[in-house]
């Protein structure tokens, strides 16, 4: 399956194999942690000069997710840019590309720890977004309900399958933590303590990759339903 369909706080959602989340009713596409301009920021700060192709790779992936769902609104859950200087130094082709993707739909930039302010590149800038039972923000808050967030770049591998770790969604009855959508993003193990304490039982992980694959997520804390 290219997506994993599930209900969350009364809303029908689809966790897509690409790492995007789709809300059918609102025709909203949610992506997190694009980290556009990461190689640029690293080089600017005197680090190594990584292959400068991650922005076009990330935008190409975003474009195919948009083509596949034709959303009315696109919500970027923060860390869309690797820092606030990126939008200004983005190559013209990438700026144009983003503008093209924005045409004819609403576009919301939620702020993240890497991009904690408005960006001059179309769309609306928000610290967080509430829509009915759902809250969209960058970093999960313990005990939140109906919250969709990013930040942690969760990943998970399944023992005995040789497939290696894959970026994944973490989903319980009250919170969704999204995988990073950007090309140059590493991951934090879904079983690490910080993620383990955020999620409550029963929780699942949905692995991204060629297909969306759901597995139970072992977590310590039992949920209060």
């Amino acid at each position, binding site marked *: 399956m290219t997506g994993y369909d599930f209900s969350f706080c009364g809303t029908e959602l689809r966790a897509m194999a690409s790492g995007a989340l789709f809300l059918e009713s609102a025709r909203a596409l949610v992506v997190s942690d694009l980290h556009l301009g990461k190689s*640029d920021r690293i*080089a*600017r700060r*005197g*680090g*190594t*000069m*990584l*292959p*400068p*192709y*991650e922005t*076009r*790779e990330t935008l190409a992936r975003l474009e195919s997710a948009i083509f596949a769902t034709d959303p009315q609104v696109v919500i970027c859950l923060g860390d869309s840019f690797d820092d606030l200087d990126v939008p200004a*130094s983005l*190559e013209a082709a990438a700026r144009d590309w983003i503008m093209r993707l924005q045409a004819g739909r609403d576009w919301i930039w939620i702020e993240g720890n890497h991009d904690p302010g408005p960006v001059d590149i179309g769309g609306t800038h928000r610290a967080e977004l509430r829509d009915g039972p759902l809250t969209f923000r960058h970093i999960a808050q313990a005990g939140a309900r109906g919250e969709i967030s990013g930040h*942690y*770049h969760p990943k998970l*591998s*399944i*023992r*005995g*399958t*040789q*497939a290696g770790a894959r970026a994944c969604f973490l989903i319980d009855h009250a919170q969704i933590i999204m995988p990073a959508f950007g*090309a*140059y*993003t*590493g*991951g*934090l193990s879904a079983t690490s303590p910080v993620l383990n304490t955020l999620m409550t039982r*029963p929780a*699942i992980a949905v*692995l991204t990759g*060629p*297909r969306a*694959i*759901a*597995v*139970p997520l072992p977590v310590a804390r039992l949920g209060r339903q």
Partner: protein
Amino acid sequence: MPSLPPHFENWFTKRGWSLHPHQCQMLERADAPALLLIAPTGGGKTLAGFLPSLVELASGNHDGLHTLYVSPLKALAADIRRNLGVPIAELELPIRVEDRTGDTTYTRKRRQRADPPHILLTTPESLALLISYEDAPRIFAGLKRVVIDEVHALSESKRGDQLMLAVSRLQTLAPGLRRVGLSATVEDPDAIARELACHPDPCTIINADPGPDPDIAMLTTATPPPWSGGGGKYAIAEVLEQVAAHRTTLIFHNTRAQAEIFFHNLWLANADNLPIGIHHGSLDRAQRAGVEAAMVRGELRGIVCTGSLDLGIDWGDVDLVIQIGAPKNVKRLVQRIGRANHRYNAPSKALLVPANRFEVVECVAALAAAKAHDLDGDPKGAGPRDVLCQHILIRACAGPFDERALLDEVRSVGAYRAISRAQFDDCLDFCATGGYALRVYDKWQRLKQTDGLWHLRDPRTAQRIRMNIGTIQDTDTLKVRFRGRGGKVLGEVEESFAASLSVGDTFLIGGQIVRHEGLREMTVEVSRRADKTPKVATFSGTKFATSTQLSARILAMFQQDSWPELPRPTAEWLALQRDISKLPEADRILVETFPHDGRHYTCAYGFAGGNAQRTLGLIVTQRMEAAGLHPMGFVATDYATLIWGLDPVSDPAPLFVPAALHDGLENWLGGNAVMKKTFRASATIAGLIERNLPQARKSGRQATFSSDILYDTLQKYDPDHLMMRITREEALRGLVDFDRIEQMLRRTDGRIDHVALDRVTPLAAPMLLEVGRVPIAGAGRERLLEEEAARMMAAAGLDKA
């Protein structure tokens, strides 16, 4: 020039010593711009190397650094400092000797830069760091001699290339610099001499008396070796007898895991409680140092070890070397044997223990080669460009440079003598701008050119470059320690091995069986568990491929009418193979096909070495998949590849024609894990990936991402980038080893013998038992993942059916 001054002469006489002829020659030729000494272990190489320095410094007229000594091992530097201390103290020479390695304290290093000793003992990495400092010209201005120890070992790796690039820099800073190389016996001394000398200067080679031939034999055992496997467990009793009959025995293994298992079994059988220790590269440093000290004190009767003891000092009174498993390479065997009996002019004694029946043949072939002084070695390629990239960055740290002057220096290094202007410019451009087809870093260049000189755009970059100097690739390892506060560190295991462990699994490390208790802050926590058999420790050491020369000798042996030199079970096994099928020949590829246990097997005997046979397996199974033959997996050894699948291969010849293999290589290579591994190594050396970062944060792991992503990105957007070209070249020579496949294709020239049988052949039978099977990835792997996920969801009651 200098003959031995009288007080030196007296001191030698008083100790009852006299100089060996080669030591005298080294003194006589001390003025030569480059000198290479080839001497067996125990031949007094170190004294031969240092004597001219001691004599020159005896007058007390030299200020500052006179001699730089470089060795591949930190321990060697420290040991030589102690050894030189004796003559210097007793002759009351006005000479200060210090060592400088990664272990030297910060304050001491600072002081050494301000006030260098007369003789500095160091490693290639510490030297590279030294030349990166702005004050390098002052430190090295008066340098007269550089002495490179174990130059044969350094020349086999990129550490040697980095070292010689550093020496080219020293030559500019100290124009009269003389170079001295100290080497064990090698197959091609001229090649090492060319690398040592400042190109195109000549290099004088001095050959010490090689001493008597070693006394090598096969260990006779009551039980014949098993059909397959690599442990040598069947020979435990006989090995113990040999340990009891000698003063100190070194027991060499080819991998760390095998050393651990053998050590464990040795102790289970060690009724007399002979003191036997273990030494390998994954053990904790303190534990290794403890074993080394005990050896020097003569307290150990046996040491189970790996390549970690291939080099180094006189570790005590070794009088026997036992090699468990086929030596794979005659030169290394001869050098290992040299570790026994460090007394000049006494034969070294060694015993070979083949781990399985095929290795009997290989051991006998290696014995014959060693007796014939037929050493093996593949000619080295041109100097690696990833190392050159690092050198350019190091040069930039030391201050602004002129690119023409740097190119001249680089071309004075033997391995880089033929580098073209364009190749050099590629490396320089990579260091300056990243060298991408998409030119976006012009604003953020690492190196900029001002008034004709290249310099760092941001001087603070120097710190990051210095933190990442070196060419040694450590695999990602995790420390293993006992659970509880202040638990003792036992050693390290590879991250992939740690990831495969479940709580409760037991494995061997440092000769102990331990129980895995859990992962905690990147440390594997274990508890002691003495009473169980372990889950095998699969963390790997170096796995060498059998050399071309040794493979050729084995193939030649196969053509004998009978094998009186082989033990009877092995000779009978070969005869049976000849009877039922054929024995492989040097100028043909033998392909056997047979059904077994519900699968159809294809076995191709290429004798191309393990890496090449594995590559062959990957390419051929890919072609079989395309042809609808449903291959399921394969296993490769140094001599053959065994493939199994659902359908029989009725005509294998088309699978092995050169054009098909070349096409297969092109298709397969790009996305292969071996390429990604090679890329990671080269990209790290060239400075694209930083292993060490300033202010690295513990929680910063989610910020780092795998180098595979960089590889995939370049493959897609910039496939001709310098790093991709370097990766291809390196992989074809290294892990992919397509060179050996090419050799095999030239040797066999399309002559393929297909033998179809209705059952397993004697030669193929042991391969059915080999470990290290490679499953065929692809559609099957995704299906496996989905099935496993569905099973887990159902088990957790989370499936929505």
